[in-house]
């Protein structure tokens, strides 16, 4: 920092006037990117809505194969991780780097828990032959419950939605590890925590998507 003027500290890239402009730009850029994300998932939600409107009985029937309890637990886990990310940002803003790192760690752990539960859910279904597309091969007992001729489509949508969402969680874990390492190197302070802020925004969006996926997939009576 020594060779920079006070108003142009090291973390400010040359094409910005000051830290504030850089921060606001990064944040706005992230929001624009989240617009992308919403429409990206929007396509899947649209497919969901179209098919649900066509075959309401299919959705009621197929949702029974999903485990409300684990879906609910995962919702809580993800909400918890959103809370810890928000706390991480708060720590950064208050220049508490240790708090920042701890909160990031908890977030990573919660995200992993989410993925592990997801893994067991998938595992269970695949075991019963409730697999996507050409792997669709339910056991006879399951076929009795899933008598609807288009049951495979529900699960096509289910696997796409949760799969793409899961990929986002994995990306989030990667980002959070990167933040954790950088925080350890002392890159962040109350003056500069832009990457933490915008990764946080991303993470909350992943949470937001799940907030809708949960009732739409699991909670159909």
């Amino acid at each position, binding site marked *: 920092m020594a060779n920079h003027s*006070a*108003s142009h500290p090291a973390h400010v890239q040359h094409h910005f*006037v*000051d*830290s*504030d402009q850089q*921060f*606001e730009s990064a*944040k*706005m850029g992230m*929001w*624009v990117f*989240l*617009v992308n994300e*919403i*429409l990206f998932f*929007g*396509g899947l*939600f*649209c497919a969901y*809505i*179209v098919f649900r*409107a*066509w075959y*309401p009985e299919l959705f009621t029937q197929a949702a029974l194969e999903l485990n*409300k309890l684990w879906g*609910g637990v995962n*919702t*809580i886990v993800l*909400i*918890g991780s*959103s*809370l810890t*990310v*928000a*706390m991480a940002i*708060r720590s950064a*803003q*208050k220049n508490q780097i240790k708090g920042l790192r701890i909160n990031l760690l908890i977030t990573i752990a919660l995200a992993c828990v989410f993925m592990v539960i997801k893994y067991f859910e998938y595992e269970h279904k695949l075991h019963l032959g409730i697999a996507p597309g050409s792997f669709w091969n339910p056991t006879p007992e399951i076929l009795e419950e899933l008598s609807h001729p*288009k049951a495979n489509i529900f699960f096509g949508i289910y696997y796409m939605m949760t799969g793409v969402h899961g990929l986002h969680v994995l990306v989030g874990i990667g980002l959070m590890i990167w933040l954790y390492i950088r925080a350890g190197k002392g890159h962040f302070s109350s003056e500069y925590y832009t990457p933490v802020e915008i990764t*946080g*925004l991303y993470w*909350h969006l992943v*949470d*937001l998507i799940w*907030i*809708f996926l*949960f*009732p*739409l997939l699991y*909670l*159909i*009576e």
Partner: protein
Amino acid sequence: MSEHNHEHHVATAKQLWLIGGGLFVLTILTVVVSNLGLPSPFDIISALVIAFGKAYLVAAFFMGLYWDTKFNSLLLIGALVFFILMVTVTLLDTMYRQDVVPSF
């Protein structure tokens, strides 16, 4: 620093925990409501109302839109508007087909 350097809003820990708690309660609530077995449109409506409530809490407080420039909120709302346009206009076809194509 320029006089423009408005301070970033720092939420208090209490605020954040409160929001987290609220989300927690709403999650339980949505499961409970779904177990009531409400008749057809109301089950979806109640689930969505709760989901939007949760989404509002996350967007406004965790993501900080409540304190942020209005433009970022506009971006979020804009995305939703275009999503809704996409769905409604598509439904205009799929709900009014003479013969639902998938059945041939």
